């Protein structure tokens, strides 16, 4: 199963980015092989439509869950129709490593 996590930086000690559409990086984590990759978000500085464009980026990777701080209005219905689960983390101090550890528990 693949999970996307929004990240503020390019390593595992970075915090979860509280925004989805304009986050700095996406981490794509594969739970079976325990591998991960960082993808720079091309929509970081987009004027509008960053949310749907970012959904496109992660949906192409075939993720089934997305962890972020908040999901905008445009993409909630989109993710619902794609059957991707949204997980909202309200603690911005959590690092990517923390989240991965939680999935591995």
């Amino acid at each position, binding site marked *: 199963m693949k999970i996307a996590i929004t990240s503020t930086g390019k390593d595992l000690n970075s915090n979860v980015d509280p925004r989805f559409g304009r986050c700095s990086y996406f981490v794509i984590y594969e739970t079976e092989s325990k591998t991960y990759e960082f993808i720079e978000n091309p929509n970081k500085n987009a004027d509008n439509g960053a949310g749907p464009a970012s959904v496109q980026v992660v949906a192409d990777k075939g993720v*089934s*869950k997305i*962890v972020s701080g*908040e*999901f*905008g*209005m445009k993409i*909630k*219905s989109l*993710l*619902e129709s794609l*059957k*991707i*689960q*949204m*997980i*909202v*983390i*309200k*603690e911005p101090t959590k690092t990517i490593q923390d*989240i991965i550890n*939680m*999935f591995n*528990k």
Partner: protein
Amino acid sequence: MRRMMNLPLIKGFKPYGQQDGLKNSDPVILLLEEYESVKLCDYEMHNHISACEIMGVSRPTFTRIYASARQKIATALAEGRQITIEGGRVTFDKDWYLCQDCKCYFSNPELDNEIEECPLCKSKNISYLGQSKLDGKNIDTDKELCVCPLCGYSIPHLQGKPCKQEICPDCKVPLKRNNLL
């Protein structure tokens, strides 16, 4: 029923530096839908038409909610009162859950299957954020109780007095609001 995107990050605001006489004044209760209307209009800069569509209410209703929100916020500022954000008739976008252990919110992508554990920490201690939890009827203070999380001892909740200030006579632990258990 008004639609909301997310719960506010905090439960309210406290004034500071007030004169002595004001310290115990009642808080202003800002309903969740009122918070949402201000957030949509003044933070996300939607106009009233698009904001009322997002919340799923009619234009006049939205204007009423928004006017009431501003009235309350202004009251709090002018009178130096605390703002508590709670209650209201809101519903979340389809099927949202809250994990009581790791405090994350998550959606249910497959509406046919009931979710039983938190996708993050695998805790079974999750609650459904459906309409029942945040239904306007719950804000009637006479129905709110301060409950002991251990033995279930309960007393009626007094508006403005935090439940945790009440102590269970048997277990000696602070009480909690019944709709938060």
